């Protein structure tokens, strides 16, 4: 059972090696990448079922004793994120067939390595291995951004690499400081340490700062809307599903385990969450391409998840995890719609788009469902997620938080309507009217499937909510996780 934990890390890495050995067999390469990702989804579902009753499967590579082993462990949160990320990767791989991104030799192997790093980061139980796996994930992303980018990619690539490198340096320094204070980097040994040792709280704060930079929280968000929109939409969908979410996951995990959800930090976290929500959504108003609008919304939506973490009650944590899972799917659906638009019309600038609703109604359907879910309208999954976060906030009786959260989701709806009104309903520009290209199945399928998930999560969100509840219980009371990982 626990041997399965190695599959999400080793599987895609092996697939990457196989892909490098098959330079010219495009169809075979696609099959290998899809199979590896499908296997990870299967393992993720098995882990979800296995962890649902509070059991924590642990795998120690090479069967070394707990102190020196590289340990992988899955709790409901890790299992859920592995599954959801793998679904996004699968959707991106299919969409890349449609856009032709995967005709570049490097695309598929890099995607595999990137995803292996992300899955590993969700499963590792050790801060230093977390650093290494985050690097495994980031290094391919540098190349993917530079390879797939349009004009301005050199500049955006440099901004992205510089920011990531600075974040990684800060992260490593934080891990070093934490080791200096406590003599360990294992999450299990570090449980609750930041509540007891002030120096460990400072060191943990350095680690959290690094992940706040990687997760693009305000005021460390400026790199994201500058770097992401330059890459091809499929690559941005991949990044949005994996990269910033790993930062967010690390913040959730470290705050829950090291700090035990210490309420002294709640005002700071709430302030960062609200600032992210407001600044992200306001930034989206002033920009003119689908990718840029969606990138700013990434900053804004991350705020909702952080808000759930900041309140740190069972209900708010479950809401945050539910929100995170549905948002990853919805955001990928929106970016893949942008990919379909760009590959049929040659651009995703709103000023050069129009009439998409009549030329490709299925694409309009996919975008509409995902956009309404992002804005949080019933009966979509996004509504349930926002409702849960707001209900948890209501229990604390903080009216400012409630007001801001509702207003931000209204502005989100406005900016989705802007894209809809211009690109889908607006008059098609003369140049576009002549081209009658319609997006093919490979382009339409992934956003439709992900949008379908968003729709189903509304009325049928029960199972995901159960997983989120189990994950929240594990975060509130990490004793079971700690016991399983430390082997005592």
């Amino acid at each position, binding site marked *: 059972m626990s041997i399965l934990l190695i599959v999400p890390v080793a599987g895609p890495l092996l697939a990457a090696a196989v892909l490098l050995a098959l330079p010219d067999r495009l169809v075979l390469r696609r099959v290998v990448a899809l199979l590896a990702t499908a296997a990870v989804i299967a393992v993720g579902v098995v882990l979800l079922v296995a962890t649902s009753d509070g059991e924590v499967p642990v795998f120690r590579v090479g069967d070394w004793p707990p102190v020196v082993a590289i340990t992988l462990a899955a709790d409901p949160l890790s299992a859920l994120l592995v599954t959801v990320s793998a679904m996004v990767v699968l959707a991106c791989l299919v969409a890349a067939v449609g856009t032709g991104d995967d005709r570049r030799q490097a695309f598929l192997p890099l995607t595999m390595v990137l995803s292996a790093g992300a899955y590993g980061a969700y499963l590792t139980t050790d801060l230093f291995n977390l650093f290494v796996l985050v690097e495994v994930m980031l*290094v391919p992303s540098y190349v993917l951004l530079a390879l797939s980018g349009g004009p301005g990619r050199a500049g955006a690539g440099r*901004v992205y*690499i510089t920011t990531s490198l*600075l974040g990684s340096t800060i992260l490593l320094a934080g891990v*070093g400081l934490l080791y*200096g204070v406590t*003599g360990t980097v294992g999450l299990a040994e570090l449980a609750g340490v930041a509540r007891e040792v002030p120096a460990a709280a400072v060191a943990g704060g350095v680690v959290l700062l690094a992940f706040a930079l990687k997760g693009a929280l305000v005021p460390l968000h400026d790199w994201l809307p500058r770097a992401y929109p330059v890459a091809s939409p499929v690559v941005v969908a991949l990044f949005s599903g994996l990269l910033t979410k790993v930062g967010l996951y690390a913040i959730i995990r470290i705050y829950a385990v090291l700090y035990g959800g210490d309420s002294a930090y709640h005002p700071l976290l709430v302030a960062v969450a609200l600032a992210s929500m407001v600044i992200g959504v306001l930034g989206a108003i002033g920009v003119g391409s689908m990718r840029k609008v969606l990138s700013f919304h990434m900053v804004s939506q991350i705020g909702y998840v952080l808000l759930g973490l900041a309140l740190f009650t069972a209900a708010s944590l479950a809401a945050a995890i539910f929100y995170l899972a549905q948002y990853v799917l919805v955001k990928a659906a929106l970016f893949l719609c942008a990919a379909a638009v760009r590959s049929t019309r040659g651009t995703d600038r709103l000023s050069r788009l129009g009439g998409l609703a009549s030329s490709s109604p299925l694409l309009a359907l996919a975008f509409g469902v995902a956009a309404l879910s992002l804005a949080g309208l019933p009966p979509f999954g996004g509504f349930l997620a926002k409702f849960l976060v707001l209900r948890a906030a209501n229990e604390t009786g903080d009216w400012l938080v409630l007001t801001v959260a509702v207003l931000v989701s209204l502005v989100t709806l406005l900016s989705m309507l802007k894209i809809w009104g211009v690109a889908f309903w607006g008059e098609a520009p003369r140049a576009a009217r002549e081209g009658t290209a319609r997006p093919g199945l490979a382009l339409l399928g992934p956003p439709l499937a992900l949008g379908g998930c968003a729709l189903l999560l509304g009325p049928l969100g029960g199972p995901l909510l159960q997983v989120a509840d189990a994950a929240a219980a594990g975060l509130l009371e990490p004793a079971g996780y700690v016991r399983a990982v430390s082997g005592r």
Partner: protein
Amino acid sequence: MSGPLIVGVLVAAGVFLLLRPGQLRLVLGFVLLGHAVNVLLLAAGGLHRREPPVDGGGAESADPLPQAFILTAIVITFGITVYLLRLLRRASRRGSRPPETWDGGPR
């Protein structure tokens, strides 16, 4: 006390280089920052923390874990530095000289 001093000087020099215009200085700044973090990791180890896992060891043996951390970190930093230099070279080959600002936008 030499550890904190070395870290401090390296960080100061690294940050100074990062804030200067010019892309090569930025790469060198990151190299210095990487060194600073490596020294910090080494200083985090100490002598009395753990027994050697295999041999039993002598009375005092250095903590092997930070050294393993540093080795890993050096490999990662080296790889990224090489990639940064490659980007720099491509930018300088495209135009007659690299753009003035790091993100290619107006100053």
